[in-house]
């Protein structure tokens, strides 16, 4: 599959995300925030970083980038879209995903190998995992606290839209330990930890993140 990775001004992990896409067995295509063009890709990754310097609110300005108009239309038609960290914030600001991400409750940036429990595994990004499987994926964020009103939280839990939850320790004050969510259909997934950093034994805490990038192949042939 051709997987586009968007670069916004201030994106940090776009190169790592493209590398992870390749390790997952796909062709990575660089997409530019200023071009309203998805270049024929089959899926899109919005990478981590500090787009527009996190000015206004994280992801708030990127949400109106020309490329995002195309991503919104494609996502609503069912194209797989994965937002990692800042990408997750962009997807929440776009209202493609429920809730929002606010400053960590303890006010400090956090960087750690984070234990997660995978919950929704019928999405194009998570089908390589088993429901309930515990994995370790790198986490690094300053504004990773997932929040939504109680009714929204009840609804997304009831409809199985929680993709992953923090285990052992809640690193940022996220409500109900939520680390990642999906839209109702499951094609749009946002995750605060960074699976693209957990794809090679040489440089990380293992390869548990690779499943996010190998899942797409299974989705394509399903």
């Amino acid at each position, binding site marked *: 599959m051709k997987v586009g990775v968007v670069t916004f001004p201030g994106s940090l992990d776009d190169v790592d995300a493209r590398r992870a896409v390749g390790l997952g067995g796909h062709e990575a295509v660089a997409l530019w925030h200023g071009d309203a063009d998805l270049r024929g890709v089959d899926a899109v990754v919005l990478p981590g970083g500090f787009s527009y310097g996190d000015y206004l*609110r994280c992801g708030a300005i990127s949400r109106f980038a020309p490329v995002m108009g195309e991503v919104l239309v494609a996502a609503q038609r069912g194209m797989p879209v994965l937002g990692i960290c800042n990408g997750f914030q962009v997807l929440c600001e776009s209202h493609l995903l429920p809730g*929002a991400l*606010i400053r*960590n409750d303890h*006010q400090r940036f956090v960087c750690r190998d984070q234990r997660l429990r995978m919950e929704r595994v019928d999405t194009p990004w998570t089908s390589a995992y088993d429901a309930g499987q515990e994995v370790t994926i790198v986490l690094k964020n300053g504004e990773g606290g997932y929040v939504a009103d109680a009714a929204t939280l009840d609804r997304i839990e009831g409809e199985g839209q929680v993709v992953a939850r923090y285990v052992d320790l809640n690193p940022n004050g996220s409500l109900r330990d939520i680390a990642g969510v999906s839209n109702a259909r499951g094609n749009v997934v946002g995750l605060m930890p960074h699976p693209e950093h957990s794809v090679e034994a040489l440089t990380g805490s293992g390869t548990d993140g690779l499943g996010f990038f190998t899942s797409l192949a299974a989705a394509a042939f399903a």
Partner: protein
Amino acid sequence: MPKVVVDVMPKPEILDPQGKAVLGALPRLGFTGVTEVRQGKRFELEVDGEVTDEVRARVEQLAATLLSNPVIESYVVHVAGEEPVDPAGAAGAAGAGS
């Protein structure tokens, strides 16, 4: 140039870590008697020409789409130099966007 002001605040039920940090610093500076701090944002928009109802409506739209996130924040719009409209009513109007 007339100025339109948009005040954005975190909704009451949303944790405000920045406000909490400020609150925590107050006793260290000798300020007592403050029981709560909520930190928001103020935008001052200079507009070309008169602030008509149409201009005000466009600012409201801007406030609801870019300047605030209705999931976690509410906003109030007023023209600088004029009294802000009843905040309760305005918060209700902002809430309609959520």
